[in-house]
């Protein structure tokens, strides 16, 4: 049974005097209990907006959401009232953000920021909450947790801050964890440690996780299922093996072949995707990726392509059919070990 079932999610921003912006446009995916699902795409593809919509954290004014996001017991996360949502947030669904420094309150000690979740959702107070917070910090690998509880965010290193944020997120052993680019703001060496920590934590607790990232290397060793997003729509969705073995959408293919490989022949060129997200087409007029695609045909701009292909689905009329030759295990181990060197 699925834990989270997102169907046809759309988010439209509108501000006075400007054209509406469709940040997310009919995104559908599913997260099963204990599963790790990746949402991959460039900045501006709508992956962060998706996560905020699921958490009910989009600004109340000027935003319109459509579709459904059914969580576990049948609650639609997009339509439920604030009170229910507040009870769910932090207890059932938790989130980790990109920039650990700005995501922590600078004038409140780390300990208080951890215990307030415990107080809110688990009714723990005083010494008991403090004890639990200490255990939590220890669990996320913060040394000398007793002392750290009293410290302020600016006294911690970047990696420690992200660990503290993770501690707050897993404090109530949530069913679902949403991680929005949790390693982007960190040093390369720290990135790998944080990824390993997250992997371990969700494994131990049986927590499902939505991993949002622009980095295919991150999802390679982590995610069971991967959704590739482009311009607010899912362009390819597949299990990890299938996706890495045979990336079908030209965009996925491009992303994968733009990752430098250690075993590549000397002198071989990297294959970056030309252009940027800015030159995109509105989906209504055809494939949004068409302007940047090297496999573009007449059919591409005749109308929006549908998501086809069963379990390994893709949204393309002229898909890539050959194997990639990429091995996701090697990719991930390089992501991790390359960092540790």
């Amino acid at each position, binding site marked *: 049974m699925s834990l989270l079932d997102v169907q046809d999610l759309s988010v439209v921003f509108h501000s006075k005097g400007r054209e509406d912006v469709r940040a997310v446009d009919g995104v559908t995916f599913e997260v099963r209990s204990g599963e790790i699902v990746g949402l991959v795409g460039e900045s501006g593809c709508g992956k962060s907006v998706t996560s905020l919509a699921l*958490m009910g954290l989009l600004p109340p004014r000027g935003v319109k959401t459509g579709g459904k996001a059914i969580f576990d017991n049948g609650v639609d996360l997009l339509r439920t009232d604030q009170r229910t949502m*507040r009870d769910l*947030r932090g207890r059932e669904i*938790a989130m980790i*953000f990109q920039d650990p420094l700005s995501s*922590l309150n*600078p004038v409140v000690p780390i300990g208080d920021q951890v215990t*307030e979740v415990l107080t*809110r959702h688990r009714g723990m107070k005083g010494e008991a909450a403090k004890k639990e917070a200490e255990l939590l910090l220890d669990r996320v690998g913060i040394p000398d947790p007793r002392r750290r509880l009293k410290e302020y965010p600016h006294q911690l290193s970047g990696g420690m801050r992200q660990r503290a944020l993770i501690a707050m997120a897993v404090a109530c052993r949530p069913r679902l964890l949403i991680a929005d680019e949790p390693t982007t703001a960190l040093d390369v060496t720290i990135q790998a440690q944080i990824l390993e920590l997250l992997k371990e934590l969700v494994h131990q607790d049986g927590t499902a996780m939505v991993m949002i990232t622009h980095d295919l290397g991150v999802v390679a060793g982590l995610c069971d299922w991967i959704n590739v997003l482009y311009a607010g729509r899912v362009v390819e969705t597949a299990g990890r093996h299938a996706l890495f073995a045979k990336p079908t959408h030209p965009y996925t293919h491009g992303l994968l072949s733009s990752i430098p490989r250690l075993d590549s022949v000397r002198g071989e060129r990297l294959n970056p995707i030309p252009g940027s997200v800015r030159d995109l087409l509105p989906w209504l007029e055809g494939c949004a990726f068409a302007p940047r695609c090297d496999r573009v045909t007449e059919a591409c701009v005749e109308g929006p392509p549908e998501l086809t292909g069963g379990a390994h689905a893709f949204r393309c009329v002229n898909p890539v059919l050959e194997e990639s030759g990429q091995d996701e295990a090697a990719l991930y181990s390089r992501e991790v070990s390359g960092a540790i060197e």
Partner: protein
Amino acid sequence: MLRFIVRRLLQLIPTLLGLSLLLFIWLHRLPGGPETALLGERATPETRAAVREAMGLDDPIFVQYGRFLKQLLTGDLGNSLSEKRPVIDLFLERFPGTIELTVVAMLFAIGLGIPLGYLAAKRRASWLDHMSVGGSLVAICIPIFFLGYLIKAVFAVKLGWFPTFGRQDTTIDATHITGFYVLDGIMTQEWDAALDALWHLVLPGLTLASIPLAIIVRITRASVLEVLNEDYVRTAQAKGLTERRIRGRHVLRNAMLPVVTVIGLLTGGLLSGAVLTETVFSFTGIGQFAAQSIDHRDYPVMMGFILIIAVVYVIVNLIVDISYTFIDPRVRVR
């Protein structure tokens, strides 16, 4: 912490020395020379000469400055020309009134300004927001003494809800111990006296509060707007915290940092405003006394006023700095 306070106190010494030097120069540049400060402007040349002699005004300038400093340090500010009594005593009698007034004004300004600024930010572009922003702009542009007369005319003269002048009704036979009338009333359990003194503070307090109130509303609003966009507020929401917890712990706690700074800054302006407000309401504090001294060209009183305000300023400043280290851990003393 103690070392920090001591260090801050030591830093004050050069500033106060500089101020005393400025005062000394001011005294010597007075029309008619420093003896005018003692004798007033109508003294005969003979008495002038005698006083010059007695004051040692023909001594070298350094000797004179040394003597001046010594007098200041011993609290000897000379005698008032109009009241013929030591300036320091006259000020000590009137100081409690001004303190009561400024405290009440600050309570008004903070108590109304912070909630109003917060609500304006929270409901941005609502009528409440527009009213707060517009109202505070107008408040800054109204000459404070005119506002005082206006408030007095409406609430005291026309409606008769409040007294028009003074610190306490003369018909009340109140015992005065500290000079703080409200406090005295409470200490002696003369409740009607305390209440009456408090009643006398309302209109001048509101008048004096107008500008600080306007500034606090504006700063709080701007600061809350900034904090509401911060990532850590989103984190707090993601944790499922209650609205109340987010407001107190995460929004206001951070938004108050610039407000505290401004409150300290405003205290200086408050003392300027007290001169005008106390005059409007015939409120016997040091502000009204200073205004009278201008009328009488009572130079020793004027000098005393400048000095006292400078010292008050220094103390408030120190308090702000110390309180700042408590609310912002990032500037905590190493």
